[in-house]
């Protein structure tokens, strides 16, 4: 008993603090029965089943229950309690709306919409990851859809209808680094709707079909974590670095980029630590990526150079969008004043205006 408890605590700890975690999200146990019997999972923890051996690669299984509200609540709780989740795969059964889909067909949903009631939908939609070419769409309905007229209306938007996926998408939109996928099994065709009882009776078949698809397409290991940035740099520096790199990759190609970047870094004094290296690196990259822009900046500085003296300094919009010059000076004596007059005499303001296309 104590041993079992230790394994369980270890599993939870690893789930919380582990590196990569995949969670399969179902609405009901009936949909998941083929998965539950296949994996070694520990007792539930708020509808969450996790692997009970730290050597196993089995995914965790989570039940969101039926309906948008329940799913929103449960998924929010799940993601807050277990921030190390890296991948969510929603599996389940759906009603077919697209006439070409038949019972037991399996599709990967790419876009999720939401239907409120009547002829009312939510504008917001969510796009999921999928390797498949054809972008299947799913309408999540707040209410169960039975009426043919209702199905007709929804079929203009989506291929299938369920009760959870949009809510999962809504929560997962707050976690853009977590991959979200959805695999659905058609329970009933658009023109041949089944009663709930019949769906329950057939649940095992649907679950087995989902399991077979999952093992064939997804059970090949989990996604790897991001490598992370090379440097410890600020957010704005990171944005610039990625932008310049994207441009230089187009101009030079990957090999040349790598060689030249490393070459430049090697040329910097060895005493410089990584935080100090980023500024000259960005300056070098900017010069290579946008030589014309850098040339224009140098030109601007050259035009403004006469404004610099012992008593004065200036700054300007280095983005080269506004012609405003901020000028500072100190006048302590008549000599200073005369010096300032000389400074302005040597400055060609018309040239500055021309530079901005104003003259």
């Amino acid at each position, binding site marked *: 008993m104590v041993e079992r408890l230790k394994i369980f605590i270890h599993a939870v700890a690893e789930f919380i603090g582990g590196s990569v975690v995949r969670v399969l999200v179902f609405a009901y146990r009936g949909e998941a029965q083929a998965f539950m019997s296949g994996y070694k999972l520990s007792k539930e923890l708020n509808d969450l089943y996790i692997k009970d051996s730290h050597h196993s690669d089995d995914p965790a299984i989570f039940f969101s229950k039926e309906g948008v509200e329940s799913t929103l609540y449960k998924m929010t709780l799940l993601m807050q309690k277990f921030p190390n989740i890296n991948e969510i795969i929603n599996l389940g059964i759906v009603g077919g709306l697209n006439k070409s889909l038949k019972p037991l067909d399996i599709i990967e949903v790419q876009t999720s919409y939401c239907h409120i009631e009547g002829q009312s*939908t939510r504008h917001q939609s969510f796009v999921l990851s999928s390797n498949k*070419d*054809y972008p299947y769409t799913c309408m999540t309905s707040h209410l169960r859809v039975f009426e043919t007229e209702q199905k007709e209306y929804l079929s203009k*938007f989506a291929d299938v209808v369920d009760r959870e996926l949009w809510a999962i998408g809504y929560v997962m939109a707050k976690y853009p680094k977590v991959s979200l996928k959805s695999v659905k099994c058609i329970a009933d065709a658009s023109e041949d709707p089944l009663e709930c009882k019949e769906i329950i009776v057939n649940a095992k078949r649907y679950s087995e079909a989902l399991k077979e698809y999952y093992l064939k397409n997804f059970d090949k290991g989990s996604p790897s974590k991001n490598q992370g940035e090379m440097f410890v740099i600020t957010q704005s520096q990171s944005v610039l670095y990625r932008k310049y790199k994207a441009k230089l990759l187009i101009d030079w190609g990957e090999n040349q980029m790598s060689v030249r970047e490393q070459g430049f870094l090697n040329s910097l004094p060895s005493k410089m630590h990584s935080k100090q290296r980023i500024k000259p690196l960005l300056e070098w990259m900017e010069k290579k990526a946008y030589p014309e*822009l850098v040339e*224009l900046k140098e030109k601007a500085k050259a035009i403004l150079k006469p404004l610099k003296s012992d008593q004065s300094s200036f700054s300007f919009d280095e*983005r080269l*969008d506004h012609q405003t010059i901020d000028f500072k000076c100190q006048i302590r004596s008549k000599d200073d004043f005369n010096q300032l007059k000389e400074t302005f005499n040597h400055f060609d303001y018309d040239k500055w205006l021309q530079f*901005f296309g104003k003259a």
Partner: protein
Amino acid sequence: MFEKILIENQVKNYEIVKNIQQRLSVESEWIDSYQDYFSKVRKPYLHKRKRLNLFLAKREKGFIKTAPDAYGKEGGEHYYFSHSFNCIFECEYCYLQDSFRSPDIVLFVNHHDYLDAIEEKLVCGSSDNAIWMHAGEYSDSLALSGLTREWQQYFDLFSKYPHSRLELRTKSASLQYLKKCKPNKQTVLSFSISPHEIASSVDRKTPPVASRLKAMRTLKNLGFSVAIHLDPVVYHDRLAELYRELASQVYEQVGVGVEYVSVGVVRFPSHLYREVARNYPDSIIHTQPFLKSKDGMRRYPKVLRNRMLKSVRDAFLNQGFPESIMYDCMED
């Protein structure tokens, strides 16, 4: 091209609707109003590649709108009208990514209402005050003309008003339908073009620039007036050289006898820029030296923008295009 055609019940007996149905062998469905479905959910923009629907509908109001300043060539009154929403082409910078919640095509087929609204304005025109009507604000004017075949009735209307001008903006090179139309002096077919090296990167699923130039030449020979939109100009290290080459190609194919040459650089409101990042994460648009200007737009810095515009204008001026026909589009 289209997965489904959704037709409003109120237009199902229109001749143009029946003709479109015949030309497309696609399943039709009947609806009460396109507004019950179009843009009711946010349909991903890239669904236009495989899941594009076509709506045939009747427009009830708002047939023509006053164009913003610097929209067209200086002089006269400028208006625009849209009898379709969305475009079959796919340009990475296109503002249609953020104009509607859906990329589905909507074609308004009640052209008689459009013509009545346009004519109400045209009667006010005079030799001192030309009335310009621009088409192609929310779609490409000619991309689907082979399917819809609506333009002759517009040409006929404008030919009655000598001080009117009809501008059709396009990237299409499809001339099947236009070759059968009767040209008039009031109609200007204006083609958006850019150097091949840039267009091949950002103008997806559009006819090559060479084809557009060939189309311009054919139309000019048929008696149509043509014009050029060098818009948007996208920064390139060899911008001046590329536009010199383009100017030379235009000169060879079309000559300098065009109505006007407009020049505009690429710019994005913030929300559109986010859509471009979402839809085309590998686009060269993201390597552009943009900054965020006071009005929230992503633009090139003013000095760089001026240089780009000058390089482009100079390329065409040096080829012999008169300065009087050149203007900057949507530039302050």
